[in-house]
């Protein structure tokens, strides 16, 4: 590719807003939910609706709320009237993909300042059955995602010899981290490792406490160019690299434990960001872990550990809040899962870390953080790496 053809504009995150994620926001409409997050992102950036040039919105399948292409109805609530509005849908990775589409609008100098937002209001419908509509002549999905992913977790355990205690360690860590995050859905103040280990087995080897909740929630970010970042009232997070990769759902030779698309996506992001040793150079990771075992699996897939070694980092406490590679300081998807927004929350939490604005779950001195999302049958990946310093500064 001809890199000299254009010099990309630097992109900065200057505003972040989330709703308090809960099981059911009966007090607001879908429009009210997204507006709340957008309003908080604007307040964080000290900008107004008039400062926004375009809106990029993402969410998971429309059946989750029972509204077809809901962005049409949300145009007013998001101040998009008279502006461009794009709707991204790339399965579970969508929150990340949405942020990357918005990033490109600024990078390509099509727009100066863009509002990007992702949401899910799962209480409007039933996600499990939204995923399981019967289609003639097609193999039905198993009820919910856990049934699909449990065999791949089992394959990981068999391949690496990981002891079956590792999953509960991840869940125990993430649920404790969530106690420090006021926006997290689950605040289990009396959580213990024993309670996680004693929770019912849902999809062997995944226990109830090792799965994500169903949440109503939205996350919004304001992205802007170098000039916009210079006016930012708070430190911006700079986008150092971003990429998406996809591969088919099923094919002979597919590695469900460590999909090639995930490896390629990480390699692309690291190349853009000049990362050669992710374990040492990255200070915090927000990765998409809907089932506890995906932490060690992604640690390997993303190059933080050699193949077969990911679970050892988890077991040794490396990924704890005070470890040398904190993973999901926010509490992660295991504590908060408005599906379509979960990827964007990972991206936003990574940005909060390098902005130094993560509050009680702040990692001291975080300069570079990775946001990660995946979806479909472990086939769609989106990632970005954000830094406290502007690229090539």
């Amino acid at each position, binding site marked *: 590719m001809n890199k000299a053809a254009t010099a990309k504009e630097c992109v900065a995150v200057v505003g972040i807003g989330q709703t308090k994620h809960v099981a059911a926001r009966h007090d607001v409409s879908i429009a009210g939910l997204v507006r709340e997050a957008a309003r908080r992102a604007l307040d964080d950036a000290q900008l107004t609706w008039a400062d926004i040039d375009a809106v990029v919105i993402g969410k*998971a399948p429309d059946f989750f709320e029972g509204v*077809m292409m809901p962005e049409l109805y949300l145009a007013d609530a998001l101040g998009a009237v008279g502006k461009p509005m794009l709707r991204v849908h790339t399965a579970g990775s969508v929150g990340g993909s949405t942020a990357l589409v918005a990033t*490109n609008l600024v990078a390509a100098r099509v727009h100066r300042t863009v509002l990007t937002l992702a949401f899910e209001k799962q209480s409007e419908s039933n996600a499990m059955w939204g995923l399981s509509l019967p289609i003639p002549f097609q193999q039905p999905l198993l009820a919910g995602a856990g049934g699909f992913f449990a065999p791949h977790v089992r394959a990981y355990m068999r391949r690496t010899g990981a002891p079956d205690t590792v999953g509960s360690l991840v869940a125990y860590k993430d649920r404790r981290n969530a106690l420090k995050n006021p926006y997290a859905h689950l605040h289990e103040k009396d959580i213990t490792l024993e309670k996680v280990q004693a929770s019912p087995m849902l999809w062997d080897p995944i226990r109830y406490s090792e799965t994500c909740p169903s949440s109503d929630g939205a996350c919004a970010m304001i992205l802007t160019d170098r000039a916009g970042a210079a006016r930012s009232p708070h430190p911006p997070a700079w986008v150092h690299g971003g990429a998406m990769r996809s591969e088919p759902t099923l094919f002979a030779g597919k590695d469900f434990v460590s999909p090639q698309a995930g490896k390629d996506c990480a390699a692309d992001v690291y190349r853009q960001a000049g990362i050669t040793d992710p374990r040492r150079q990255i200070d915090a990771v927000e990765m998409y872990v809907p089932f506890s075992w995906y932490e060690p699996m992604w640690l390997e897939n993303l190059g933080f550990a050699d193949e077969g070694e990911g679970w050892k980092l988890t077991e040794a406490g490396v990924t704890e809040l005070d470890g040398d590679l904190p993973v999901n300081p926010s509490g992660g998807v295991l504590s908060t899962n408005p599906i379509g927004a979960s990827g964007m929350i990972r991206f936003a939490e990574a940005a909060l870390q390098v902005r130094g604005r993560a509050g009680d779950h702040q990692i001291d001195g975080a300069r570079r953080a990775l946001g990660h999302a995946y979806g479909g049958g472990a086939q769609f990946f989106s990632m970005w790496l954000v830094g406290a310093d502007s690229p090539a500064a």
Partner: protein
Amino acid sequence: MREVAIVAFGQSDHVRDSAETSEVEMLMPVLHDVLAQTGLKARDIDFTCSGSSDYLAGRAFSFTMALDGVGAWPPISESHVEMDGAWALYEAWVKILTGEAETALVYAYGKSSPGDVREVLTRQLDPYYVAPLWPDSVALAALQARALIDAGLTDERELAGIAARSRTAAEANPHAQLRGPVPAGEHLVAPLRTGDCPPVGDGAAAVILAAGDTARRLTDRPAWIRGLDHRIEAHSLGVRDLTDSPSTRLAAQRAGAFERPLDTAELHAPFTSQEVVLRRALELDAPGSTVRINPSGGALAANPVMAAGLIRLGEAAARIQRGESDRALAHATSGPCLQQNLVAVLEGES
């Protein structure tokens, strides 16, 4: 701004009912067609983006099946919009503008035949106040047509003329579903007659984009995207003037449509009355204008939902590639009564 062009366009034959073919089977020949036109292999494409709707497919993540038709192995850089493929083209265009891609494959597909598309589209409406009333897409378009007639901006005779012109033009379009004039018919929802409404059908389309010299290498006469913009309006019909399309006008302004005369306009107007709204917004009836409107027959001849907008861009580009146009406007729409609109200005190299 970086030069980007449409270098290939392909579409399926649009049919009333494609029950015997899946979305992937409908799409694959079209993808092979555009790749063959450029001599590119799937692995040569830097970025892939598609547009489709789960609500048409009746299942969540329906686009993941279509990915099998692309052959995403080794893994590809890929994205999807839950919008008409014209907006997938927009995302791909932006990707090329960043310099991260030289080529992009854009595709879209929709099968309306398995369900009742008029009913399905009611699910796009405000879920609390409007959708529970199930006002269907023809009824809403009829409200718009009535507003136009009441304002003295058109009449049923002019609408019938638009229908006849469109289907006559489609006689030269081998992919169209309605080729040749059809009777004006009875009122479906007054004042719209069956002839004023699009056929319900299934279809797919694909486009390849390329930057600068890559585009020149891939085709003799690239259709250069000189401007591309899209805008959305308020959702509630009650706060809009349905006889006007300010979002189309603004998008056209930003795309540079008014800077020099056009010779062709491919308008995504599923209903005859919507062409009247668009022609006014785009000033296509200005004195001395010689713009040829919808030489493909437009959405009145084939309206595969989610692909019909991308097809307008493809048809306009194909005319430029064939040397039949030097400067064309292509338009796509989404939402009830033209709520969201995209305008592209395409030019051939003189």
